[in-house]
């Protein structure tokens, strides 16, 4: 699979069809990979595809396409981000070649908790789960422990903007209900939720990693960075933190595809995907359409439907 990816990347770069290929390469440790920006056929040999390829690479597209056409390796979930970027006119459909890689699921770092990280040599998919090669031998980790939550409930097919399909889609049967975490959360009363979020947002150190990792957060100047109109205090006041996260959530309403990069990048462990999924569900219930499906659709909050939109005060 990895060879196929490298081969395809090489072809694209050699023929000059694309200026660069964005994929993954080995990181500084065997249990992490890092984004790879290959701009020559030789660079393409660095590309890898293994369970540690977690990042959503669509985040680099708006700036990368400025230098010319880009090919990007995406998992089916990340492909949704590409759809959103095209839909919102951040990139042209013709400027991006979407290479969809077959994804059985990506690594949940918790799965390696019992293994000494220094001894890890290699991580690969094996059977239903993953196999970790260490100094002292091979360790198999079953699927339910090995992969991220979003992968365990994943039913996604190839995104609508697929150009090149690498390999065959693995058989995927969801192990978990997508909304298991939400169902648990929704048991709380309204006031309990207020207290819950006040507590969670107090942890926020306003590093903005969530925003940086988010492919939908591409504003040239974020509302929290503005100095003229200060809507959100830059300090870590609990209220200011609440305001930042709530406003960011509303900005992502109907646009979040649930890749979970915000939560994964959060150093303080704030359950940000819970917000995204809650809002996604509300949007689906009220307006019936989800994010990242149709690149030609109109943005949900940038359009309306006279026949279907709910009426706030029916006469």
């Amino acid at each position, binding site marked *: 699979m990895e060879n196929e990816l490298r081969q395809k990347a090489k072809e694209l770069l050699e023929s000059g069809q694309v200026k660069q290929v964005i994929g993954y390469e080995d990181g500084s440790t065997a249990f992490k990979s890092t984004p790879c920006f290959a701009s020559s056929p030789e660079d393409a040999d660095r590309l890898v595809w293994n369970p540690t390829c977690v990042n959503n690479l669509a985040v680099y597209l708006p700036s990368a396409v400025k230098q010319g056409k880009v090919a990007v390796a995406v998992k089916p979930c990340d492909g949704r981000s590409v759809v959103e970027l095209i839909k919102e006119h951040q990139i042209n459909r013709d400027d991006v070649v979407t290479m969809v890689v077959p994804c059985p699921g990506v690594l949940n770092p918790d799965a390696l908790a019992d293994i000494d990280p220094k001894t890890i040599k290699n991580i690969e998919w094996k059977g239903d789960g993953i196999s970790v090669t260490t100094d002292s031998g091979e360790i198999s980790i079953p699927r339910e422990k090995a992969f991220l939550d979003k992968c365990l409930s994943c039913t996604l097919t190839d995104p609508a903007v697929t150009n090149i399909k690498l390999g065959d889609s693995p058989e995927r049967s969801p192990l978990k209900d997508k909304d298991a975490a939400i169902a648990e959360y*929704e048991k709380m009363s*309204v*006031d*309990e*939720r*207020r*207290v*819950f*979020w*006040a507590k969670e947002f*107090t942890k926020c150190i306003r590093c903005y990693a969530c925003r940086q990792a988010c492919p939908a957060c591409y504003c040239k100047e974020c*509302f929290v960075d503005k100095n003229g109109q200060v*809507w959100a205090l830059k300090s870590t*006041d*609990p*209220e*200011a933190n*609440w*305001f930042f996260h*709530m*406003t960011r*959530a*509303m900005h992502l*309403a*109907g646009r979040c595809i649930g890749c979970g990069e915000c939560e994964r990048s959060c150093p303080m462990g704030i359950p940000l995907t819970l*917000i995204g999924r*809650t*809002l996604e569900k*509300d*949007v689906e219930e*009220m*307006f019936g359409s989800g994010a990242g499906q149709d690149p030609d659709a109109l943005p*949900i*909050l*940038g*359009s*309306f439907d*006279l026949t279907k*939109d*709910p*009426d*706030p*005060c029916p006469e």
Partner: protein
Amino acid sequence: MSEEQVITKEPETAGAPKEWEPKIIGFLCNWCTYAGADLAGSSRLKYPANMRVVRVPCSGRVDPQFVLKAFERGFDGVLVSGCHPGDCHYAKGNYYARRRHMLLQKFLEHMGIEPERFHFDWISAAEGQKFAEVVEEFTGQVKKAGPFKGVGK
């Protein structure tokens, strides 16, 4: 008079504890609801004076950020109101506003703010009576929900 005095201008009975009055902010569209409020006033209709009005050019001007900011600053309730469907001065601003605020209300509930604290409504320039009723009802509703405990603790 200061802001505080404006809402508590009823004469105080000596010694009796002051009844809590909710602080409400209203974002009213210039063309319909603001004129409706004007009509309510010039028709001498009575309604609670808890609401501070912010006049906006269109309900579509009301960013959810305004509403969030109001709650962040500790307002007990937020009202957003504009022209009826089909009446928007800018043709379709209220349709965008409707989507946004219906979603916001639901989202606020999910994030721990009672839906009673937020109200989105259509009030036309001719509906002075409706304006008075909506404000009265909304103020009562917020009063029932009690003082907002804030978003930070």
